[in-house]
């Protein structure tokens, strides 16, 4: 079932490698695997900026960019040229070395996660034994570059933004990892490739994706909530809330460094979405058995674009959360539900299949969740709030 079109990139890589002398082949192989990722995802970033502005425009009942090229299609190029030709302003009191390194470090850390994402059949840069662990390990490096940016600017706003961003990222990293633990429990492997393989196959026309199980759908929902918070997107965009702290930790950056921050942020969002696809949505496999003739990488990017569409939709729909609401959501709802979900995954594994298993698993998650959300709702009191740090 390995169609030539499906394997076109793998085959062309092998064909190109045959021209390289054997001694240089490991290096050439690594370069040939990495460079397409370094090109494809920034290109996706350019497309996404346009999609996002167009989509937000549609939601807000206006046109969005429509002046550059047909339907504003050349807007990303115009934006790129603009940010390249802008003056690079560095504050006088800034810590120049750290200020310079922060955006580079952020983009580098954001790119590292792509090493374990299976983009298509046989299309993964490195099939690590501990792939999921690697993904979360390099993901935690982003926080440090956020701190570098916020601290080195020597600005109150950027420092506040960095503090908010780090607090938020640390709080949501716990549910992000716990939500993916259920998949690791069920698949029995930390390798992203074998997790995708475990979701292969079809019953009738329906695929065996993990999202079509009680623990899978709950895990996917929690993972996406945590991923939205991890990538600092609306409604969790407090670290860069324009009306409060202007632009957060990258306020003192201009020109291309500012664009690099945007690139890093979107790359992080694509990487976590890609991980969600790998863990819950069957990776590169087709959604119906009769659609398997479409190449695997097309399915991966289709799913990625669908998730990006979801992100844009949520950004255009929901208002920004307050800091205490954000933390309460993380620690009082998402984290307990993620822990319960692990119990559900265990029950699912040991119970015999059938409708009773479905009922029991749904009951374990749904009943406590109702009480948790009720509790979150009841705590909403309208009174003067006291702040511990800003008086």
């Amino acid at each position, binding site marked *: 079932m390995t169609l030539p079109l499906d394997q076109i990139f793998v085959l062309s890589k092998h064909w190109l490698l045959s021209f390289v002398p054997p001694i240089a082949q490991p290096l050439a192989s690594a370069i040939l695997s990495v460079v397409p990722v370094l090109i494809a995802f920034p290109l996706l970033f350019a497309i996404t900026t346009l999609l996002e502005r167009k989509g937000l425009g549609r939601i807000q009942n206006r046109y969005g960019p429509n002046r550059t090229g047909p339907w504003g299609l050349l807007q990303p190029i115009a934006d790129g040229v603009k940010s390249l030709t802008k003056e690079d302003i560095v504050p006088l009191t800034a810590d120049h070395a750290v200020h310079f390194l922060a955006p580079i470090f952020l983009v580098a850390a954001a790119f590292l996660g792509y090493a374990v994402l299976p983009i298509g059949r046989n299309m993964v840069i490195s099939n690590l034994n501990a792939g999921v662990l690697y993904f979360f390990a390099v993901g935690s490096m982003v926080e440090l570059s956020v701190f570098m940016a916020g601290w080195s600017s020597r600005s109150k706003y950027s420092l506040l933004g960095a503090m908010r961003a780090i607090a938020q990222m640390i709080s949501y990293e716990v549910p992000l990892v716990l939500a993916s633990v259920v998949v690791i429990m069920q698949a029995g*492997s930390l390798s992203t490739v074998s997790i995708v393989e475990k979701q292969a196959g079809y019953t009738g026309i329906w695929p065996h994706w993990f999202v079509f199980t009680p623990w899978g759908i709950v895990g996917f929902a929690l993972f996406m909530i945590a991923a939205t918070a991890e990538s600092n997107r609306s409604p969790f965009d407090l670290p860069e809330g324009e009306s409060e702290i202007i632009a957060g930790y990258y306020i003192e950056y201009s020109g291309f460094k500012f664009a690099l921050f945007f690139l890093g942020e979107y790359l992080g969002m694509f990487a976590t979405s890609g991980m969600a696809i790998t863990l819950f949505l069957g990776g590169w496999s087709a959604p119906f058995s009769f659609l398997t003739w479409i190449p695997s990488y097309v399915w991966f990017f289709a799913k990625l674009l669908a998730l990006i569409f979801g992100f844009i939709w949520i950004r255009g729909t929901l208002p920004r959360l307050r800091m205490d609401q954000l933390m309460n959501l993380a620690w009082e709802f998402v984290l307990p539900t993620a822990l319960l979900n692990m119990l559900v995954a265990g029950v699912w594994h040991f119970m015999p299949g059938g409708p009773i298993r479905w009922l029991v698993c749904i009951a374990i998650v749904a009943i406590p969740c109702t009480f948790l959300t009720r509790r979150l709702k009841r705590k909403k009191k309208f009174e003067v709030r006291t702040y511990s740090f800003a008086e």
Partner: protein
Amino acid sequence: MTIAFIILAVITVAGTAAAMGMRNAVHCVLALTVGFAGVAAIYLQLDAQFVGLTQIMVYVGAVAILAVFAIMMTHSPSPTKPPTYSSYWLMGSIVAAAVFAVLAWAVVSSGAHTQSLPSEPTVSVQQIGDALMHRFVLPLEIMGLLLTAALIGAVVIAMDHNEEIK
């Protein structure tokens, strides 16, 4: 001694040395993070994936952030004082040299370096998980209890702090 090991060793040593020599406390933490990352890379180069990735997750992702937060909460933002050398630096270096000499003597006299190395075991993450869940399940549970106690302690301290403000 491969080229990769030499590069990683240089990065690790340079990072940790810079962490001791720099004036600005935040620069020290960032340099130390480079050292942590270098150690993690050496683990990965030795095919110890689990240890290497945990090193990145715990030290680069958590310990460095913790140190940075501690500095931000306690220090003023302009810490460009001249480097402070303790007046005991001579005594300190003598003690350090003595400790190094004893350790080096112990290593050399043990004869460990002359023995042939056992064949390299291939340890996967799965084996580590099996060992933790079967043979070392009691230490694991005790560690879990200890960490829970620490967590509750941290929450209690934070709660007291809030009541004082009110």
